[in-house]
């Protein structure tokens, strides 16, 4: 297991460097932030002063070297917009996104396992057809539309939920439900497909022949074998959420990393953008390693390959 961890960590270093390098240089190709931070009537002298004060007058390679040296000391620079340490802004936003993503994935996985297994238990039954239809629809509906309709129906018309914000359990319902729908739809389809194959496998017939109960056959034997593809897809979907649920964060006023990143791009707030991307990339690498560990725990063949 440690070998697996070490390999994944080593193989993650190069992509991480590419991400850091790409964000640093691409961000600086998008225009001079002085236009946004100085008055429209700013003189050339004011612009030159601004560039010098923020180190933007140095050659790009020098700026990058300075940035790496700062990061080595866990100093991510200062936000141009808020004049605060960029690292603090990112660390403030990230937990909000992680909590939202965590609850969403937990509910999506539990729901998808239950519904997908039920649908696969009797293929082509009414239950299976309804589950397939609804999951296809859920996987295709745009989250922006769902979010706005959710606000209009459940907050404005029925008055059951708050429109937005982060206050109390009720405020979580619409953001989580909006985020949940697509991963849930995708996972139901994946779990159903994998379970249909698993339930028709010879070892299931053997288990039934040996008198195993149906719940044990479904959840003990079949689901364990069907879990691998679902886990892979769930990992990809979780990466998308950790990367920031921009639409949901924007509509519901959720102070997460996705909104912070988009604002940083639009505001050319390089320090915050770089810190946000770096932390997100690290989180995604950690998540991928977690998914690999789960694979290894579920499947001894993976452990054996890793050991070899």
């Amino acid at each position, binding site marked *: 297991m440690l070998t697996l961890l070490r390999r994944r960590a080593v193989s993650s270093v190069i992509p991480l460097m590419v991400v850091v390098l790409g964000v640093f240089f691409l961000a600086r190709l*998008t*225009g*001079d*932030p002085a*236009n*946004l*931070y*100085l*008055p*429209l*009537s*700013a*003189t050339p002298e*004011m612009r030159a002063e*601004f560039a010098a*004060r923020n180190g933007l007058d140095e050659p790009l390679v020098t700026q990058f070297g300075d940035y790496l040296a700062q990061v080595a000391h866990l100093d991510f620079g200062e936000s141009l*917009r*808020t*004049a605060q340490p960029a690292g603090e*802004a990112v660390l*403030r*936003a990230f*937990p*909000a996104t992680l*909590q939202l993503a*965590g609850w969403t994935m*937990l509910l999506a996985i539990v729901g998808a396992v239950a519904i997908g297994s039920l649908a696969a238990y009797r293929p082509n039954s009414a239950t299976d057809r309804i589950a397939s239809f609804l999951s296809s629809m859920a996987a295709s509906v745009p989250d922006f539309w769902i979010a*706005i309709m959710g*606000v*209009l129906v459940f*907050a*404005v018309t029925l*008055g059951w939920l*708050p*429109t*937005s*914000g*982060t*206050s*109390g*359990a009720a405020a*979580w319902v619409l953001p989580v439900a909006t985020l949940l729908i697509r991963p849930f739809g995708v996972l139901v389809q994946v779990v159903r497909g994998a379970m249909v194959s698993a339930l028709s496998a010879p*070892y299931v017939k053997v288990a039934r022949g040996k008198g195993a109960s149906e719940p*044990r056959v479904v959840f*003990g*034997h079949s689901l*364990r*074998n069907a879990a691998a593809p679902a886990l892979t897809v769930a990992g990809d979907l979780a990466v998308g959420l950790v990367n920031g649920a921009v639409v949901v964060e924007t*509509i*519901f*006023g*959720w*102070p997460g990393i996705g909104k912070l990143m988009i604002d940083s791009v*639009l505001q*050319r707030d390089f320090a915050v953008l770089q810190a946000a991307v770096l932390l997100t990339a690290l989180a995604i690498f950690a998540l991928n390693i*977690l998914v690999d560990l*789960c694979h290894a*725990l*579920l499947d*001894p063949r993976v452990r054996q390959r890793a050991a070899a």
Partner: protein
Amino acid sequence: MPGPGPSRSRPIVTSLVVLLAASGCSVAGADPVGGGPGTLRIVLPEEPPTLEPCDASLTATGRVTRANITEALTEREPSTGGLEPALATKWTRTSATSWTFTLRTGVTFHDGSPFTAAAAAFSIKRATDSGIDCNVDGYIFADTELTATPLDDTALRVTTSKPDPILPLRLSFVEIVPTGTDPDSRVREPVGTGPYRIDEWNQGRYLRLKRFSGYWGKTPDFSAATYVWRAEGSVRAAMVTNDEADVAIGLAPEDGAGDRAVEFATNEVSYLRIDATKPPLDDIRVRRAVNYAIDREGLTTAVFAGRPSGQLVSKGVTGYNPRIDPWPYDPERARRLVAEARADGVRTDTTLTIIGRNGIYPKAAEAMEVVQDGLLKAGLKVRIKMLDVNAWLEYLLRPFPTGDTGPTLLQAQHGNQAGDAAFTMGQIYGSDGAQSSYGTAEFDARIARAQLASGGKRQRAFADAFDYQNDKVVRDAVMANMTGLLALSPKVRYRPDSATNDEMRLADMRRQD
């Protein structure tokens, strides 16, 4: 085949569940939806980046800071355009370059320190002559040098490097802070003399102000105000209809505020800046054709809220010319002018590029499509390029992009917050103005004369300059004086004015009995 024994993944799943459960259904410092009947709840489109007083000319900062947390020596009355006393009770011009201000007594800052001429002098120096890149410095004072000298505790002399007949107006943008304020870097949470002080700012979530018990003026109705921010207009409107907020600003008609919506005139004017240096736009007939080809009534009826306008400043601004009407929509005349120019060898088949900016006002892209349609019908070739703010600013500000962009029409909007046409003319129309793509020597001379004039002469000089631009220069196609929209709870009495977008005075908001 794996057996059905104890799952190895169980510890991971259990840990995940425990972690999430521990996090609870709350984000640290969740925003307060309630706040009690004495609390005014306001929802903004964006969180202020800082509350730095010397950036109060920035909309996102100023609408929270100005006249609420901090105050200036003078204040402009938006409806009349007149200048009223604030922390200064009177002012006198003692020479062409010198003014003396008498300051209000009995005023204290939120930290208990007294307001004196030393604090006023410190604040002016900090805003205009420090390394903070104060927005107000570039926007209001440009290259004017100021020296503020306390004569005693209640008298202040301000001298300028060149004659400035509107210095008291300019100083209405300098928010006064105590001398203990950091002179070298921005402060996020300033101390001021305003009717409210900062109680708590939970970044990303909410900002709460509390009524300042030591305020020198009339006590405001609400004992506290809570600001939250939502980027989506329909959510802001829904918060008011759902009784989660009392005031929502920056709305569009389609946001659904219903009978809670309140329209108000703003000082924002939408226009197209015509690049008159390149053919075919270097021919005044084509520039006039552009103006005749735009259906302003159609735009303000069907695309965005506003009133057709023919000049870059709105009523109430010194220099506004009531005789200038919006250009009429006359597609036939536009076609004729383009045909005449073509017959004279002007290259009217050159493609014009409309440089648009996403979100500059509601339905910005649709508005440019309407303009494009009108220009195509006039016989011009037009394409649209919509950009984000920073990319668009490259076209707005000098030096302009040098690539092969061809002749352009720049979608723009100008809001003269300061109330004097000097803040419009120099930078937008002057040949060397930061936002000017074209000017003439005669127009520059008229602007310069107006800037040095005062009183009635100043009004007439700027009004004549606008007339001259409209008749002889035609550098712009002014479209509309934009209308603002906010949603107001029935619990609150408030009459928005043309300054509301930039300066939302909490003390003007009253409880509805």
